[in-house]
């Protein structure tokens, strides 16, 4: 039976998650140099178009249609076949099946957009579009099916992932790392060129929109309105707040409380609480956010020292944040919060903790290696990196034939 309140919740949550991709474009776009702003934006905006269509055509089916061997969905939902205004038999029984479908579609878009942060300022746009299509099809849809699809093998195993800590963040984070290693650093990165963010207020605005949208992402994942959605909402805000504040303090201990740091910490907290939000007591959001920022901070330190140009730290912030959150779910989850969940380590659920490790490990390994192979494939065929001169001039001009800010004018 369709419930109007629940449907409103899923629709507005879908809209909120949609807004996160423009938010991400601002978050990323503010951190690159002026010559690569539009290129960075387009890696997000083009996906709202591309993945937005592919999801309807076949992505939803591969992810959520009846199971084939635990690894992939069948083609029952191809081109929205059997997906209509009535609720699905399996998922989200109080909202139209189409609403569940489009809500999930917004997750697909932003997950692909997330890993673009690892390879900004040097990626060929044509190669990127091919890679995004392949990645969406071969990495995203299967992983989603494993974890969230009815009959997926990780779902069957009992791995908990409330809103995508594994599906979205570990997945995108490991993929970004693989691609950054494959593509090698930007020119000048190892030489210590500054790579100064061209517009930090743009980053802050992006952070605000991400935070706002994340309420749809996490609390919407309850798939109904009510106590569970509220629980996830509060936990999400707690972790984001704690993450932002912690990262600010970490920077302060070394020197100053930086705005860029606070923004990064907020996102780390949001990513980390994602898998847990609907299974934990809301107050647990605070330690989750604190630890997410500490992990993220030191992971960036490590990757910078190693000369790895995973440029906007998708791996450190989302990948490691999501990993920590998935494990934290295995520690703090409680059936008193969500009876469909499980008890974590803290309440004697050692097995659940092991399952969480298994789930993270499987997806991390698959995402890293699969993405590396796909990236290599695209690189040796179409080419995934721009020519040196194109990189030097900037991708806005070289890939898109335009520039972000118009100049000397009548």
């Amino acid at each position: 039976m369709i419930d109007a309140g629940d449907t409103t919740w899923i629709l507005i949550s879908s809209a909120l998650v949609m807004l996160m991709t423009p938010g991400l474009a601002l978050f990323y776009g503010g951190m690159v140099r002026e010559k690569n702003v539009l290129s960075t934006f387009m890696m997000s905006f083009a996906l709202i178009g591309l993945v937005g269509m592919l999801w309807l055509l076949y992505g939803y089916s591969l992810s959520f249609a009846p199971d084939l061997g635990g690894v992939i969905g069948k083609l029952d939902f191809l081109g929205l076949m059997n997906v209509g205004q009535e609720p699905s038999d399996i998922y989200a029984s109080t909202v139209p099946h189409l609403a569940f479908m489009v809500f999930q579609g917004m997750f697909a878009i932003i997950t692909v957009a997330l890993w673009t942060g690892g390879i900004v300022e040097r990626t060929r746009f044509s190669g990127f579009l091919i890679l995004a299509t392949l990645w969406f099809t071969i990495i995203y849809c299967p992983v989603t099916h494993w974890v969230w699809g009815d009959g997926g093998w990780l779902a069957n195993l009992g791995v908990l992932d409330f809103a995508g800590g594994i599906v979205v963040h570990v997945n995108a984070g490991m993929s970004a790392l693989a691609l950054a290693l494959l593509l090698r650093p930007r020119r000048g990165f190892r030489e210590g060129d500054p790579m100064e963010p061209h517009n930090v207020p743009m980053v802050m605005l992006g952070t605000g929109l991400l935070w706002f949208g994340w309420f749809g992402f996490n609390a919407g994942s309850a798939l109904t309105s009510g106590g569970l959605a509220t629980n996830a909402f509060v936990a999400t805000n707690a972790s984001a707040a704690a993450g932002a504040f912690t990262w600010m303090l970490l920077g302060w201990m070394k020197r100053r409380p930086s705005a860029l740091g606070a923004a990064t910490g907020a996102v780390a907290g949001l990513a980390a609480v994602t898998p847990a939000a609907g299974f934990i007591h809301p107050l647990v959001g605070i330690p989750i956010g604190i630890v997410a920022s500490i992990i993220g901070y030191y992971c960036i330190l490590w990757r910078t020292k190693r000369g790895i140009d995973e440029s906007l730290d998708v791996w450190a912030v989302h990948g490691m944040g999501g990993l920590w959150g998935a494990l934290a779910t295995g520690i703090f989850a409680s059936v008193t919060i969500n009876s469909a969940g499980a008890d974590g380590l803290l309440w004697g659920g050692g097995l659940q903790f092991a399952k969480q490790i298994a789930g993270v490990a499987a997806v991390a390994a698959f995402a890293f290696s699969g993405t590396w192979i796909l990236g290599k494939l695209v690189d040796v065929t179409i080419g995934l990196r721009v020519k040196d001169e194109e990189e030097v001039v900037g991708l806005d001009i070289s890939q898109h034939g335009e520039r972000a800010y118009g100049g000397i004018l009548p």
Partner: protein
Amino acid sequence: MKKIEAVIRPEKLETVRSALAGIDILGMTVTEVSGRGRQRGISLQWRVGEYRVEFLPKVKIEVVVLDEDLGRAMNVIVSKARTGERGDGKIFVLPIDNAVRIRTGDEGENAI
């Protein structure tokens, strides 16, 4: 006629401008520039750690003055723009062959 090019700290612009106005030097052209000298850039916070920016924001003031005003103008600038710390900037004096006021077409010293 001489042209004074003074590269100073941005925060000193207002003081210098009004001091020059005090000795009746009103015309000037100002540009936001980036400079490097003994004060070798600045390190800024990033998500973690810091990065170095080689160039610091400075302001370049260009004032074309009659030869007889040159000394006074330079003294004013030097005294008003000084903090005594590295990065106070430089003044350069360049020769000017001619000047024209576009509005009237006046040439030479009349144009200043």
